[in-house]
């Protein structure tokens, strides 16, 4: 580790001009904020799509003003399902926690002045933005958005417009958008990994890294290995659609009484390739949230993270096991019971590192001097949702139960609570925690707490009843339950879910208002408003372009030295040399 020369002053100045400074900027903090804003726009669109779906499920005959024809067709509903899932998974859950906060805070937390490859990093953001625009444009082409779901199962996704509206140009644009997204994510992942390995400040040993950095690092490895596989699968799917190959399309497929000219391909091959990406993707969404939650729980309990090394191990174990369990998405595909058994065992094995994390979170807050800030509330909410969603996972991990529950709302409830809600709570926790550092002002705590309680109650009100719907056999992806006799007694439950969804969606306006109001009128943030230990709090809020204003931080201790006996304060920054920490003893 070489010492960074602090003589060069020129780098602490940002480049001149709006375009170089805020738009085509290579600065990791600008790129991080750009990713964050992209995710904010994407999540707003995603929420609107889901509210349209919920509205249609309970009032299928209602007139919707801006739709052609006025009443939503089943195909339009499926396009909403597809686009909601795609936008949320790729452009929100992958983008905000990893690329957004990771870009902003990874270099700051390891004491680096910049990412290792700033231009690659900028390219990664602009690629993601292009992918997002192409994805949204799929709504506007003839036929509308694709209807094959975010998993794009062939043959539906592979046969072209004959298999449904949206399966023509719309589906092609979906694949191209995802391919661009894959390439952009790979560039970002290479940058993250190389930065963590080679750009750490002197003294920042691996076991002194904040758990957030560990999560971003492991997540970047997952992205590297998973998105390259999705890219390969996407290329093959595109060839099946446009070049007449038969990778995924079997012989003898008849659509609209027309025999399709394909032979011998296998839709299951796509499922294997897709879920080899798709399951690690779940951890790509949730691991950064776990890191943030560990960090925030420790900070606001004024206690070190319980079992730091074990937490690091659990993060790596979850990342590794995540690559061995893709088959549990395919229990109903007719796979051999032996394979099903193996995938089931491996899936249940993930419960071990997950439980380790959960108990360590509880151990961290146990006996702490807990400060119920909004960031802390969202972190606690994350733990609650993670446990709830994890428990339903134990049921679904067993092939025999999954056979019954797989195509029902039970699965919708499960993955929304653990992947969507928990990850979103991680993002909110990170936002309330780091907003002061990013923008130099505090978010309003009163509005924040209101936002938390409505969202927390809303998350459970929306998704808990879906378990019951699923157990009763309500199928996923159906646009309309009219005339399904066995579900009629549950109609009030569906109404309740929809109303809860609209209330929770509206509550997000509190956050949006708080965000922009606080940008202008929020209380000015000091360097270290939360009395934190990590390096980003040792520099200005917001940090100068080169992060530490020409000086190079040196690290002398671990990331979570809270309430150390004998220390003058209840926290010791990582860059405080040992002699100053303990007064003459």
């Amino acid at each position, binding site marked *: 580790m070489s010492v960074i020369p602090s003589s060069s002053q020129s780098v602490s100045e940002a480049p001149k001009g709006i375009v170089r400074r805020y738009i085509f900027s290579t600065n990791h903090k600008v790129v991080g904020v750009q990713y964050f804003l992209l995710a904010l726009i994407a999540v707003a669109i995603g929420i609107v799509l889901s509210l349209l779906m919920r509205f249609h499920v309970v009032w299928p005959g209602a007139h919707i003003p801006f739709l052609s024809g006025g009443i939503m067709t089943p195909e339009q509903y499926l396009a909403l399902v597809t686009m909601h899932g795609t936008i949320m998974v790729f452009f929100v859950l992958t983008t905000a926690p990893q690329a957004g906060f990771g870009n902003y805070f990874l270099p700051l937390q390891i004491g680096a002045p910049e990412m290792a490859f700033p231009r690659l990093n900028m390219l990664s953001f602009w690629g993601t933005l292009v992918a997002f625009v192409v994805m949204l444009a799929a709504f506007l082409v003839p036929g509308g958005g694709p209807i094959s779901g975010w998993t794009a199962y062939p043959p539906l996704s592979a046969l072209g417009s004959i298999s449904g509206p949206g399966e023509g140009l719309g589906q092609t644009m979906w694949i191209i958008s995802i391919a661009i997204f894959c390439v952009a994510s790979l560039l970002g992942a290479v940058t993250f990994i190389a930065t963590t390995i080679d750009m750490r400040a002197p003294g920042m040993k691996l076991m002194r890294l904040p758990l957030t950095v560990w999560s971003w690092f492991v997540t970047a490895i997952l992205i590297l290995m998973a998105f390259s596989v999705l890219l390969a699968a996407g290329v093959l799917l595109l060839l099946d659609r446009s070049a007449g190959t038969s990778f995924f399309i079997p012989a003898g497929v008849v659509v609209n009484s027309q025999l399709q000219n394909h032979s011998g391909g296998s839709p299951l091959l796509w499922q294997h390739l897709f879920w080899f990406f798709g399951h690690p993707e779940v951890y790509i969404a949730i691991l950064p949230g776990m890191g943030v939650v560990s960090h925030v729980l420790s900070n606001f309990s004024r206690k070190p993270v319980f079992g730091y090394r074990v937490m690091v191990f659990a993060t790596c174990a979850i990342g590794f096991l995540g690559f061995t369990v893709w088959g549990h998405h395919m229990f109903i595909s007719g796979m051999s019971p032996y394979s099903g058994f193996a995938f089931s065992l491996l899936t249940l094995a993930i419960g071990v590192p997950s439980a380790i994390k959960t108990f360590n979170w509880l151990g961290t807050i146990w006996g702490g001097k807990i400060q119920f800030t909004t960031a802390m509330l969202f972190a606690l909410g994350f733990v609650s949702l993670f446990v709830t969603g994890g428990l339903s996972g134990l049921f679904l991990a067993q092939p025999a139960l999954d056979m019954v529950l797989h195509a029902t709302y039970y699965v919708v409830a499960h993955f929304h609570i653990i992947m969507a809600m928990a990850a979103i709570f991680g993002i909110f926790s990170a936002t309330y925690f780091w907003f002061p550092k990013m923008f130099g002002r505090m978010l309003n705590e009163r509005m924040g707490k209101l936002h938390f309680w409505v969202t927390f109650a809303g998350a459970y009100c929306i998704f808990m009843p879906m378990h019951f719907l699923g157990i009763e056999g309500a199928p996923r992806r159906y646009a309309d339950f009219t005339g399904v006799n066995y579900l009629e007694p549950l109609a009030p439950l569906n109404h309740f879910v929809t109303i809860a969804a609209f209330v929770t969606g509206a509550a997000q306006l509190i956050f949006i208002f708080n965000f922009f109001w606080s940008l202008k009128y929020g209380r000015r943030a000091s360097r270290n408003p939360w009395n934190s230990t990590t390096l980003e709090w040792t520099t200005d809020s917001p940090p100068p372009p*080169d992060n530490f204003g020409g000086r190079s931080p040196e690290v002398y201790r671990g990331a979570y030295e809270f309430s150390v006996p004998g220390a003058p304060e209840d926290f010791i920054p990582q860059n405080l040399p040992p002699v100053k920490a303990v007064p003459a003893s």
Partner: protein
Amino acid sequence: MASSTTADGIEIEKLGDGGDGSSGHGDGGVGGGGFGRSDAAPQRAYVTGMTIALGGVLMFFMALVSAYIVRKGFPNSDWRGLDVPWILWLNTTILIASSFTVARSRNRYVAGDKEGFRHWWAVTAILGCFFLVGQLIAWRELAAAGVYLASNPSSSFFYVFTAAHGLHLLGGIAALGFVGVRASRHLTRGTAIEVASMYWHFMDGLWVFLFMLLVLGK
């Protein structure tokens, strides 16, 4: 405090040098550390980055290869084995030879022989171009025999493999050209040469693997 006496520190050194393990001895630019500007990455970060990127490339091709193995292994498969055009043997030989020339070029650079470096570097790029032209000839031959992308899964995979590898190699030739012609603002010449040769060797090894798969696993 910053000494690398701990297990962690040692591990980092290993990771940083992993990329040029083939060369044995580091050259001036690699691993020498030293931030050129205070916000620039140390030179070893480029070697790390290339190692990681190649990991991603490997996953991409392994996904295609596993699809190949699975698609071929279906019971009652419509798979008809593809006899690869003979010119692929020549192409493969050319590409293997180019690995030797790029290694020689790199050695000349380390020895301080700029002229020798430039000579063998150019030879490598030319061999790379020969390889690509050879691949195009192979495509033309197959097309003349009526074997197209969609003719059979075996030909689909053949075109996908050769096209994907060819595009990657084209990028490699562009990199060789770039490194040979001008210096980068961020990388030292030594690092650039190191990183480009790593990529080149990888593309060579990858092709040999794919070729074996196509010949032995048809």
